[in-house]
């Protein structure tokens, strides 16, 4: 079973309040050859009801079990070492 660990304090996705999405980095999404990673808002709300922070989330876990052991590009390419994958 592949487990995806994401450290939001290390990553700190630069976030554009006008766009309602992280606008920089996202290297992990770009390098994932099967597009298993996505960003999503963390559940805490800001003053205007908009999300305060974003996190990286792994979907399609059963496919991650197949593909991740041979790849790990997200771990290699993350500039702040915010992603860990354990088996």
């Amino acid at each position: 079973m592949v487990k995806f660990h994401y450290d939001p304090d290390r990553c700190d996705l630069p976030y554009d309040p006008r766009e309602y999405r992280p606008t920089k980095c996202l290297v992990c999404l770009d390098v994932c050859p099967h597009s298993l990673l996505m960003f999503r808002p963390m559940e805490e709300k800001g003053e205007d009801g908009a999300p305060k922070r974003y996190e990286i989330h792994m979907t399609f876990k059963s496919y991650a079990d197949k593909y991740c052991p041979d790849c790990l590009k997200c771990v290699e390419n993350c500039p702040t070492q915010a992603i860990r994958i354990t088996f």
Partner: protein
Amino acid sequence: MCKYCKMHAEGHGKWYLNPRGYTEELFYKLTLLDRILGRPSKKVRDALKSSDSAWYPLPISKQLDMVDWVSKPFIGRLIRIIGNYIALHSHSAQVVPLEDALKIVDLSHDHALYPCMCKRLFKGQDEYKCLNFAPLTEINRRVERGWKEKRLSPEEAKEKLEEFSEKGYVHAVFWWCEIPQAICICNCDSKYCYAARPKLWYDIENVYRKAEYVAEVDADKCTSCGQCITRCQFGAISLGEDDRATVDPTLCFGCGQCRFACEQNAITLVDRNTHPVAKKIW
């Protein structure tokens, strides 16, 4: 003709060519419970939720985590049946070839392009390729944190669809809460599409239904150039024993993109119902 076309086409051949699906009457129709509680219709409530571009990734990620339960032993089958039911009563798609997509533009009004949500979430890039039309565009404008739009005239919308077709994107018309209420034409790349992947990987039929057509190759015209193989997003075309392209009817989605790659015009679309193998696979 698929079972939903038989039920909802009302004499127009296909459910998405039924003009009733593009009217506001169906969209704003209230049930008895809605009247008692004084709330808008389910379609409007769902549309307001999905128009909030800030929060929408959260329910999507939860849905996709649920989809993954299909691969579990024992309960997987049950989850697939539930998934099919939910897909039918929420927001799912059927693939259409370019000709039918152009007919849909003629039937609808108030066109606008929005960034593809799948590409935004899974690649972190905004590409304006999701063609919405009334009444969804009107709901999108009401939401404060809504998606940014690019309004188009019907002629521009048709030009855009042809442009997407040249890039190899597959057109898919989405229904909203019930068939035949149509709300948008997505131009999908199955690499990051979150409707196509549950279909391809977990075989949930209603999430991304195949088109009413299936591709066939005229072996006499084929020159074995292999252009169609690179164009097909679903891996349905391969070179057969005699070095001619052959379409696997069990994998073909009937999007018709391979026709535009073929310089010899060797590929045609035939009705899925007349095909002996493909007629049972949707």
